[in-house]
């Protein structure tokens, strides 16, 4: 995957997400799911993917139940499968491109550096916030406040959200100080890595785009 320029990886990822959003036919979603599984196997990401999906199981169950009640079991299946595909493609994208590569790709595409930095830093801080949440849950559980994922614990959420909010503000202030102290915002920033899109990468993106158009055409019943 690192053979590809980050812009190619980003474009393929975005087209993958679009393909999932366009698909409405259960058969198409199943084919997409198969393609995702093959990609996960080739990139040796099967185990972390299963782990990440395990955390989303309550959300899948909730979507399935709500859609079954308000729509139909068939629609609920399509919606749930689409959600799984969407999260899986996003998982693939974020594993195929590091925060810096994402930032560099966006800068090369003309996005202002400040905006690209905000996006990449958000990516970088997700695991840190995850650690914070774990620490808060441990601290509150230790004094009898149950924060396990149950309906009866909804009223306890303030015990998680308030400390998380306060500490996130503190973290963002410290981050701003650290960036300021290392010259963030100076004009004329350079880029250490050199990126070059090769002809075959243009071909790859064009091929993927054609497939996306064909899928859209197919989903609309053969008319555009």
């Amino acid at each position, binding site marked *: 995957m690192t053979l590809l320029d980050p812009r190619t990886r980003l474009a393929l990822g975005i087209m993958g997400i679009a393909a999932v959003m366009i698909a409405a036919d259960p058969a198409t979603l199943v084919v997409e799911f198969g393609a995702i599984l093959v990609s996960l196997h080739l990139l040796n990401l099967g185990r972390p993917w299963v782990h990440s999906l395990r955390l989303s199981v309550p959300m899948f169950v909730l979507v399935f139940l709500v859609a079954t009640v308000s729509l139909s079991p068939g629609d609920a299946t399509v919606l749930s499968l689409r959600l799984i595909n969407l999260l899986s493609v996003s998982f693939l994208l974020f594993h195929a491109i590091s925060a810096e590569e994402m930032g560099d790709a966006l800068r090369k595409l003309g996005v202002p550096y400040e905006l690209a930095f905000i996006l990449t830093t958000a990516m970088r801080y997700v695991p840190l916030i995850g650690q914070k949440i774990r620490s808060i849950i441990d601290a509150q559980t230790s004094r009898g406040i149950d924060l396990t994922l149950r309906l009866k614990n909804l009223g306890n959420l303030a015990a998680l959200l308030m400390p998380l909010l306060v500490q996130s503000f503190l973290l963002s202030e410290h981050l701003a100080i650290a960036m300021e*102290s290392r010259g963030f915002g100076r004009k004329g920033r350079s880029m250490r890595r050199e990126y070059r899109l090769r002809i075959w990468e243009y071909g790859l993106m064009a091929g993927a785009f054609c497939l996306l158009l064909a899928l859209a055409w197919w989903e609309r019943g053969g008319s555009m």
Partner: protein
Amino acid sequence: MIQVQDLRYRYPDTGWVLEGVNLVVNRGEYLAILGANGSGKSTLAYLLNGLIPHFFGGTLEGAVFVDGINTRDCPVSDLVTRVGLVLQNADAQLFSSTVEQEIVFGLESLGMPRKDIERRLGEITEALHLEHLLARSPMTLSGGEKRLVAIGSVLSLDPSVLVLDEPYADLDWEATARVRRSLKDLHVDGKTLVVVEQRLERVLGEGVRCLVVGHGRIRFDGPSKEAAGASPGERLVPCYPERGRQDQSAEPLLAVRDLSYRIGQQQVLKGVTLDIRVGETVALVGRNGSGKTTLIKHFNGLLRPTAGTVTFQGRKVRPRHMAAQVGLSFQNPNDQFFRYRVRDELEEGPRRLGKLEPDWFQEICDLFDLHGLLDRSPYRLSEGEKKRIAVASILTVRPPLLVLDEPTVGQDGRLREALAVLLTKLTERGCTTVIATHDLEFAQAVAERWIVLHDGRVVADGSPEELRRDERVLRLGALGRLTDNGLAIAPALHEEGCDAA
């Protein structure tokens, strides 16, 4: 090189934080700025690289000159090549996905060409011995490694002066020694260093000039070895009370048998067996990463053992049902505050567990001197007050066993003293306490029994006086030698400081 003239400063919503500060830092000097929490020492550091007034705003009177440039007239981004600031919070300072990216971030900010970036990257990694870490994510590093990468990320800009805000905070003796060695090398190479620190023993033996700040004013300016005696009020070396008399019984309160715990492929605990008896105060000591926090999380069922058992009063520990029996207070008090008043925060646990006893609540308020704080917001308290509230909120539940995780991290000498006094009182009342810490001086002051954890195993169990001389444990690296971190000089300073106090 740096000149501070008649300086007076206050943040937008506070009183004067610094007043009447005059200071000259010469080229190649090693200056330690010492002081208690809230004394104004970090504020002084922010003034040196222009974060004050440009980032924080507030009211600034007087002037700070760096190489003849008034920091008021120069943006922070233009001062980065003159004064580099390493923050205390390494997690906030390290925001890139690899160590390599972290080091080159500042160089890219300067607009440096690729060839020069590569050359500078090579120089920094060689100087700080970071070669093997370059491809790793900063989040996966140990505390000492994180600190060195943070130093490297600022040093890459080649500033004339390097300012470090509490570079040894939350590091154990081994990591502290590593960072100290790197700083010493930088100083020998001619770098001007300004180290902001709470603990005098960490800047001893460097031939450093010491500046003691108290209540916003400079109280002492001279050699570090004279600092403790010259400013006893600042408690640069804490005067711990006599250890509390322990009225322990042979009856085990908590029993751990062959406990093992694994995260993924990593074996964190390996066959731990120990007993905590009723009425004793035990220190669980060991380096960062030795498994202390993982072990105490088994005491109240936050973690389930991969193998082995934990029993409390003869019964197996059950997850989420132990808050009334085992009170566990973690390192960061901010992890638990969510009420608007201290009183509500203190009553939260006992109310939920149906154990609110007004007499005991009053007793805890007396013991921790909390009556004046009950109607205040916990967010607006000082760090020391927050720590007291955090421990008190666990004790209001009246658990038979109190467990404290690294209670002295980020605490100045006065607060460590106060904490030791509280623990002594609790010991005398028959409370059973376990303290997980790498602060060996504090552990020695409060606990008669140490359990030494190293690489996930219990390697020794005994009195601190015996264990600190145990060659086997010392050779293993499970405990720090008294010669580490200037501690050999510390006892003399301790006596001198306490006598003066």
